[in-house]
């Protein structure tokens, strides 16, 4: 239990550091460390599938972000901070945290989950889907339509990325 707290506090410290550090490359690397802490937290929360997926996703994201920042001037320029804006944001965030107390009171108590839907999944998965891993059974059998729409979103993003990179090359051809 205490290790979960330690990992979450490490994630919070890493998030603050990644946002406040001046060097962009260091910020990207610290974000990778935050994602790896998240992966370890998933492992402690008995979700090994999620831990593996998060590990791969984090590595891919860090590679992409390093590729985006390594050839640029990676120092953030020191600019004057708009204090009225800053104070307004802090006040709204403190309101958000205050309101989150009511939300937490409505959530199920930690360690005693609501199993109303997943109890049937757990009891029926082996006979209906004949899959040992219940997470795989839910993702790929019971809720395959969700996964399908997620893949639609994934490929839409891929098409958008390809369109952006192609526009670059066409413009370079015409300009130079």
């Amino acid at each position, binding site marked *: 239990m205490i290790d979960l707290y330690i990992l979450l506090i490490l994630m919070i410290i890493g*998030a603050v550091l990644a*946002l406040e550090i001046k060097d962009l490359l260091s910020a990207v690397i610290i974000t990778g460390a935050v994602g790896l802490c998240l992966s370890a937290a998933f492992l402690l929360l008995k979700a090994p599938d999620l831990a593996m997926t998060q590990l791969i996703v984090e590595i891919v994201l860090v590679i992409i972000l390093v590729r985006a920042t390594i050839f640029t001037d990676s120092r953030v320029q020191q600019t004057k901070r708009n204090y009225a804006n*800053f104070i307004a944001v802090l006040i709204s965030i403190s309101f958000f945290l205050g309101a*989150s107390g009511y939300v937490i009171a409505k959530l199920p108590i930690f360690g005693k*989950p609501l*199993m109303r839907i997943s109890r049937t999944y757990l009891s029926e998965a082996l006979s209906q889907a004949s899959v040992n891993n219940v997470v795989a059974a839910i993702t790929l059998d019971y809720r395959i339509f969700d996964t399908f729409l997620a*893949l639609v*979103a994934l490929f839409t993003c*891929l098409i958008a*990325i390809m369109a952006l990179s192609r526009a670059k090359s066409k413009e370079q051809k015409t300009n130079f």
Partner: protein
Amino acid sequence: MIYFLCFILFSIGIYGVLVKRNIIKLIISTMILNYAVYILLVLMGFRWQGQVPVFVSDQEINFMVDPLPQSMVMVAMIVGLAVTALLVAVAMRLYQQFKTFDIKEIIEIKTKKPEVDNNA
């Protein structure tokens, strides 16, 4: 109490989105928002002395953690990867066009674009 740490992480992400001006910092803030939501959903499905939801020989259903949030988070994770990659692509394109990651500078360049075109 442990839910509150997730909310603190989420509010750090909101702070980054609202205050930071560098595009890479904005992307990092959205990644932090993603992480906060993932860990909150998985924490809601945790059970004391719970076990991995995989059927082995001596495993009882009553001692498994909730598998439904885990499968939802797995799908959300893939979509989050795609969206973040799209944001990075947009940021690299903006850098090629304007030679900066700063949003204020991009807006300044865009407002006096005719001069820039004449100089170029």
